[in-house]
């Protein structure tokens, strides 16, 4: 379970998270929507411990992410994150991209790491690209490789930060299909997205962020059909 308790976070004078409370249970899919600069992406990097927080608490399976004695490297092994920019390791082949962390972080033997990598890459439809370098892949393929790379660590939770935003429109579908597949398999996910149709389709709950505040959270049918928050109403009207 991921528990976010009254989290505040500022960059200089700009407060980007203004007391966020959110609990995500095992197997749940929560999508986060909202305008640019509303704090959605920052929240994900805080959950992963990549960004410190100013106050509040984030607990992952009871472990406080930002506690001084928390082994963040170990905690991150159970929280996979995929970013808007896929951030492939350009000097490694697709297979090496996916095997690197299992080998070096988990200490798995090469053969075992490769077996896991092949399984995950097959899962995301890249079984025929194992020996290719990322530069030879399309954006959508690189993003799917990034998803396989995170999945190869066998995480309990997956965080997706606008994973389709940097893709050409014709490549968005293949990545969303991968996320749909993960959701249907019961993966616990928090997805920051601008894809409203996707959010409506896969989410158990949808959260709307506005200026650092979680203005509304509800099951998708309720949130999209009868939004309560005025800013959410404006946002949905603008995106439809």
């Amino acid at each position: 379970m991921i528990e976010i308790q009254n989290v505040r976070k500022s960059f200089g004078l700009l407060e980007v998270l203004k007391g966020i409370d959110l609990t995500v249970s095992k197997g749940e899919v929560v999508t986060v929507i909202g305008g640019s600069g509303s704090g959605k992406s920052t929240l994900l990097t805080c959950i992963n411990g990549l960004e410190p927080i100013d106050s509040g608490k984030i607990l992952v399976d009871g472990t406080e992410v930002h506690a001084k004695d928390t082994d963040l490297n170990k905690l991150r092994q159970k929280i996979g994150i995929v970013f808007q920019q896929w951030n492939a390791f350009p000097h490694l082949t697709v297979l090496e991209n996916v095997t690197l962390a299992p080998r070096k972080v988990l200490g798995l033997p090469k053969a075992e790491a490769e077996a896991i990598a092949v399984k995950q890459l097959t899962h995301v439809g890249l079984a025929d690209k194992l020996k290719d370098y990322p530069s030879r892949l399309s954006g959508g393929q690189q993003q799917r490789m990034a998803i396989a790379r995170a999945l190869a660590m066998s995480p309990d939770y997956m965080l997706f930060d606008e994973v389709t935003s940097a893709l050409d429109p014709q490549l968005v579908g293949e990545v969303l299909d991968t996320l749909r597949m993960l959701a249907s398999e019961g993966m616990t996910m928090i997805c920051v997205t601008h894809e409203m149709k996707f959010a409506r389709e896969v989410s158990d709950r949808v959260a709307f962020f506005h200026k650092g505040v979680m203005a509304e959270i509800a099951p998708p049918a309720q949130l999209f059909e009868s939004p309560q928050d005025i800013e959410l109403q404006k946002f949905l009207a603008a995106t439809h």
Partner: protein
Amino acid sequence: MFNTAMTMSDLMFLLKGAGMTLAVTGVSVAAGTVMGILFGVIRVQIGPWWAAPLTFILDIFRSVPLLIQLVLGNAFQSIAKLGWGPFTTSCVILSLYTAAYCTEIVRGAIDAVPPTTRRAARSLGMTWGQDMRHIVAPLATRIALPSWIGLTLGVMKDSSLVLWLGLIELLRASQILVTRLQEPLFILTVCGLIYFLLSFPVARLGGYLEKRWSND
């Protein structure tokens, strides 16, 4: 018909000088590169303010002409009674000179590795050391290589200045022959050719590695 008084023994004398050039360059570039990597990583890690004293010292080695550094360094080792010979003194000064330039190359190369790529590595649970070893080092090496090859070739030519400390390297050996044989154009041409033959493989190695890595 072209005639020269230069003998095979004279040519061997030049090649021996070239061997000294190679030795001074090899030791200085190796030591300077190791120090440059260390200082470069320190500069990136501790930030510009804390690294200011180190940067200032390295700037001295980058700013003062190498000849002055060699003469002052030699004088310092005499005054401090370190008992260093010309070879050791030359290598120490040239190593620091190389390190000063290499530090900037390394710092620039590490800074050029996209922070988002490093963040992706850390998000997979990699430690700082694993990130440096498996992501930053290979990517920064590719970025730094052309500059490092240029530095190495520069140091090889700059090493000719160690003749002022009494070392008989390639240029000094040529000067001795010019004085004795009075054939400056021919001897300096041979000297230049040897410098080229020493530099060419290094330059080609750089080109080969760049081409190989560009297939990534």
